[in-house]
């Protein structure tokens, strides 16, 4: 997917689930920052979703828009007790010696007075722990901020919410660094995008290729 979308610029539209995540976050942000009533927060979330998914042909669009109000409600119930965040969508830049470009990211919410940083994840199934990819993501935020944050991931479903505290932050950052250097080494093989594409093969059963256009692109690029 990385080769196809980032190197060959053959991008496919993101699914409705991704739009749902952004929409719920917008709704929750409205509740946290403006202390807006729930109906206004839901309205904001729906508005954002409609805008993002207006041209989406994803068949899961209806399912996602239906889930938005409950997700906003559940997320606000969990995060309102934290108070008003000091910032949101803050840019994080993590520079690693030997890495030609910095690793960047954007955290969701920070409560600077408490030293707490929370990343919001929406899902239909509540996980029992932070996923590895999410751990790496928020560990990056922690590292870039001096490793002195209480870094958390908030998983919100239509019916439940759980906030988990990140563990082993250093280890996850190390993993991220290894991945970044692996990508750098891969990119250094050649300046020819087609040559890079010729030395990898995608798992087209992966959900990343669920979108028909992504699948079509994969077939055209990789021949499988």
């Amino acid at each position, binding site marked *: 997917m990385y080769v196809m979308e980032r190197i060959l610029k053959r991008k496919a539209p993101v699914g409705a689930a991704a739009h749902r*995540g952004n929409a719920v976050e917008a709704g929750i942000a409205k509740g946290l920052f403006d202390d807006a009533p729930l109906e206004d927060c839901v309205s904001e979330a729906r508005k954002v979703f409609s805008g993002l998914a207006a041209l989406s042909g994803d068949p899961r669009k209806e399912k996602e828009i239906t889930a938005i109000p409950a997700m906003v409600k559940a997320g606000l119930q969990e995060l*309102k007790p934290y*108070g008003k965040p000091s910032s949101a969508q803050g840019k994080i830049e993590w520079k690693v010696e030997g890495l030609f470009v910095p690793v960047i990211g954007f955290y969701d919410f920070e409560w600077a007075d408490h030293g707490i940083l929370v990343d919001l994840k929406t899902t239909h199934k509540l996980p029992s722990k932070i996923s590895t990819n999410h751990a790496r993501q928020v560990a990056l935020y922690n590292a870039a901020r001096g490793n002195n944050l209480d870094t958390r991931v908030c998983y919100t479903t239509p019916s439940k919410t759980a*906030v*988990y505290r990140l563990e*082993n932050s250093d*280890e996850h950052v190390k993993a991220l660094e290894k991945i970044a250097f692996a990508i750098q080494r891969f990119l250094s093989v050649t300046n020819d995008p087609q040559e890079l594409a010729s030395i990898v093969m995608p798992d087209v059963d992966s959900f990343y290729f669920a979108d028909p256009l992504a699948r079509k692109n994969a077939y055209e690029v990789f021949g499988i």
Partner: protein
Amino acid sequence: MGLGLNYRRSGGGDFLPVCKYDARAGRAFRVDREDGQNNPVDITRNFKAVFDMENIEVGWIAFPKGAAPDFQLVPLGEEFPEEGPTPNHKQGTRFVIKLSAECGGDCREMASTAGAFLDGFNALHDDYIAGSAKNPGKLPVVVLDDTIAVESGGGNNKSTNYQPQFKIVSWVPRPKDLKPSPRGKAAPSRPSAPPSTGSQRVEAPQKAPAMAAADDEDFG
């Protein structure tokens, strides 16, 4: 044994002058560097030093002839690789001491892979552990009380080494110039499992500030 040594590894750098224990001779030397030459000064008879037992390193060490030693070390208590990086690396230890004034008075590192030395140092470490509870925050002043001949092998391979008999004679606060100075760091043994990510549920902070109040479904 108290140092947990059965293997070996550790790093490099620019470092302290050296104090050496020659297990084959049972002698302790302060190695002075003059005009690019090493000049060993025998301090066996009056050896006395403050040992920084709080910052012992263990792991793998190689002492190649004609070249700088290579250290692949971790702080005592941490895991280190079960195998050395090369066959020349042997399990050993490194630590820093501050020599008494009559021995030179400066801070030096000691490192060894010799079994006889490690046995003697291990016994010292046991004594240190036993005495440290009654001397919190202090470091032991150690003398070389004796050396004991230890024979190993047989026939033509028979050899004799001398195990140092270190003795703690007093405890003192850490000298100001005896600072932790790790020599090198080995890549620790790779854990058998990936690090946990976090499964502890947490609540909102108790005192909230004034409030204006990987599957396809995981998206922020």
